[in-house]
């Protein structure tokens, strides 16, 4: 199972084991990462599973599709590392992925 590292806005670090094939959002929610609200449940319809991808991982992830790009413009404090965690599928290649969490989704 790939390991994902979540870092809270206050710097607290948590490692979780994700399942291959699930979304990064599901891995967060199942492991009690409350900063990922994911209110629509993973349909790219609410913009509340926003996160920032660490360092070189940005280039290693498949690029966001049009709908995700559109939604990222609407989240709170977006930057060039912003992604919606519901649109990222966990794979073996993502073992060790480091994800920074925003201070809030609203």
């Amino acid at each position, binding site marked *: 199972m790939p390991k994902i590292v979540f870092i809270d806005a206050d710097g607290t670090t948590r490692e979780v084991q994700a399942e291959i094939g699930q979304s990064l959002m599901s891995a967060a929610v199942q492991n009690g990462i409350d900063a990922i*609200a994911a*209110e629509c*449940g993973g349909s790219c319809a*609410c*913009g509340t599973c926003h996160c920032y991808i660490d360092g070189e991982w940005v280039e290693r992830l498949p690029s966001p599709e049009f709908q995700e790009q559109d939604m990222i413009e*609407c989240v709170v404090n977006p930057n060039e590392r912003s992604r919606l965690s519901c649109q990222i599928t966990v794979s073996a290649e993502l073992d060790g992925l480091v994800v920074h969490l925003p201070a809030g*989704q609203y």
Partner: protein
Amino acid sequence: MIEASPSGDAANFTFAPLSPEFARDPHPTYRALREKEGLHYFADFDIWLASRFEDVSAIVMDKRMVRSLEDIATVEELAKLQRDANWHDMPHHERFVQFSLLDSDGAVHDRLRKQVFKLFTPAMIAKLRDQIQAYVDRLIDSLADRGEIDFVDDLAAHVPGHIIGRLLGVPDEDCPQLRIWSENIVQFFDVDRSDARKEIAERNTTEFYEYLTALKAERERAPKDDLISVLIEAELSGAMNFDEFISTCMLILMAGHGSTIDVLGSGMHALLRFPEQMARLRNEPGLIQTGVQEMFRYESPLPFFHRHCVEDVEICGRRFERGTKFGLLYGAANRDPKQFDNADTFDIGRTPNRHLAFGGGVHFCLGNHLARLDMDIIFSTLLRRFPTIELVDREPEYKRGLSVRGPKKLKIALRHA
């Protein structure tokens, strides 16, 4: 504090969602439904009801589950369903209410939602805070010395419609009329499908349509910084047609009224029923966001929505044919003890609080941030200004029906000491 409701009898109960007993307290029924195996068939609506959190969220997230029957039923079947619902022979209602962003799916839904989504994001809604606060302050000033008020009619009912009206671009003085039209049209969705109500719904839809057409012409001549002007741009660019324009404006206005008023009412009622929670919110005003979330979970204002499956599906070990209609009981799912610790406890600090009151999936409530901001401001302001708020009528009457949840009236006392 745990609400004292009798335990439901899973094997033997009557499902009577239009009864006064259900309006008074639907939760024993919801509990009994959750304890039944599988889904519950409700013959009156020819619908399979899901009540457990797990089942409701699975259906709402399932891409095979849609709102509209358009791609499932034949034209003749659709016409029959429309007649059975007494939704036929009402040309404007059919054009602008029966078709909408809410009742479309797939590419049409994505295209329409995209035109309005950006105006309802947290960052955009947060910009409205000062004007909502100013409006609420003025309204409360006008009520402050009355002692007793009806929280629903005198306060809650004025705010959401007024704010959504401003966002859309409706002049302030027209908002009361829009509220009347909206309520009359929405009422025809649920409790009363009589010919008398049908006539009112069609007449009000026509008046609403004529009003919006005139307002549109005005904005075409002189655009403003409002949602109507954004939608006019969308129409000009070919992203929506005229009927979709009118329908989207109506939907936003209708959705922006009733449900927020209802949850304001039930939220205030909950704070008054559980005074230790109100005291906690007074002492820790920072809990307002989780408090508002809890109000939506505890008495979800739109407790029932439906979906149809576009292919055969299996749920809870049972096979359902393509076209089967499913009822999503958000009000029941949001009290499911398997999802929420002490699910019947009203806890304003509850976190996480992953409830389904805003639905889920692609139809996730567009206006959720606006509703939450309205509530945040109203409750925070009242608690700041009135050291004592008390319930006057101990047993307020709640609206009847499966699709709505909220008190009709809520008599409260506001005291300066």
